[in-house]
């Protein structure tokens, strides 16, 4: 049976954190903010739709496995329409680049662009901490119905690590 010292974990050098998202084909160049969980149990998103959030409890681009999740508001009553309104222009094969705090850049190639009704969003797959290295960029999609809680769908772009 293998054993190891049960010492307090030393504060290891922190893994690099994503700070910028660039998707040239959709003219997206956004600041990435580390986010967690909102009071309602959903992923917390930056209030300003010009920023996009990275789910900091899940995998990051530097991790060897799992799904990196970026999510942002499409628009906001306060700030108006954001750049993610252009996310639906992204096509399979497009390059996505994420710059990290250590200035390294992680590259991904888009595989699918899908509108998924919010109730059918498979969160366990979306936030998967294992499996191949992939990226999900999520915003809102479909029609907007203020009486039914806003946008009906999530627009989900899936990409696989290419570097």
């Amino acid at each position, binding site marked *: *049976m*293998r*054993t*190891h*010292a*049960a*010492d*307090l*974990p030393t*504060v290891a050098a922190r893994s690099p954190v994503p700070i910028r998202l660039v998707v040239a084909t959709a003219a997206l160049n956004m600041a990435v903010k580390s986010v*967690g*969980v*909102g009071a*309602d*149990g*959903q*992923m917390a*998103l930056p209030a300003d*739709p010009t920023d996009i959030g990275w*789910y900091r*409890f*899940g995998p990051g681009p530097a991790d060897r496995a799992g799904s990196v999740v970026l*999510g942002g*508001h*499409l*628009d*906001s*009553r*306060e*700030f*108006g*329409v*954001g750049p993610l*309104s252009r996310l639906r222009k992204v096509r399979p094969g497009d390059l996505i680049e994420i710059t990290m705090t250590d200035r390294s850049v992680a590259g991904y190639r888009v595989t699918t662009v899908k509108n998924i009704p*919010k109730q059918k*969003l498979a*969160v*366990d797959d*979306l*936030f998967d*901490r294992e499996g191949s290295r992939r990226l999900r960029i*999520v*915003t*809102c999609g479909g*029609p*907007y*119905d*203020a009486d039914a*809680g*806003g*946008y009906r769908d*999530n627009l989900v772009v899936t990409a696989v690590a290419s570097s």
Partner: protein
Amino acid sequence: MSFRRITALTAAGLLLAGLPVGVAATAQAAPTADATVSVLHAVPGATVDVYANGKALLTNFKPGTLTDPLKLPAGSYDLKVTAAGAGAKGKAVIQADDVTVPGGANVTVVAHLDAAGKPVLTPYVNDVSKLAAGKARLTVRHDAAAPAVDVRAGGKPAFKSLTNPKEAKADLPAGTISADVVLAGTSTVAIGPADVNLKEGTNTIVYAWGSAAGKNLKLAVQTISGLHHNPSGIPGGTGGQAAQLDNGSPALGLFALLAVFGLAVVGTTVVRARVRS
């Protein structure tokens, strides 16, 4: 002999050797999941060997070390700790018979000092229930030859009057806390402070061990990961402006339509806009 080989022998040996008949019969009737068992050595100063039902489970086991989790069949085990190299018939430093290992449970068996300083074995069942997204679990266990203590987080008592060998736990927002251990009801620091990283989706188990009289009180840490829940979803925009742009009928467009097509057409447009916006 390597640890790995001993483990393989032991897992097989445990089943054949020492299981009480009743337990074995029950296991046959309704097979239960294996238990996940880790062992922590928290008796200062003594390198030991550990035997389970007469077979070597661990050799040359040093204080302050923890084994990787081992899958063991559920059942009842006779555990014996001897000085390293004393052999299966060697004098027991600690002996605990009929230690129950429940099927499917995640258990840590701790060799430690009781409040009076006598070496004992305490099996703890670890809480591996799922955590809400963004949360971490902190478990603290008093396994030291020391009086009752309070465990403080950020200088405030988080767990009060914990006595050997009791445990306390709480689910907290993930993050780093500064923890210390004080004599119960006082601000006399016995251990720490130390930064403890409560990683999201984990149960971080902190053991206070050693001896106050021996002036070697310490903390040991065990982390069990994979207990996370995912966020329930991703919220949407709050404005609806992007959808209006998609419709091609923002306010100005509406006025244009009004001018060109007249009221009847505008009426239907407004209805459509309400449904879509």
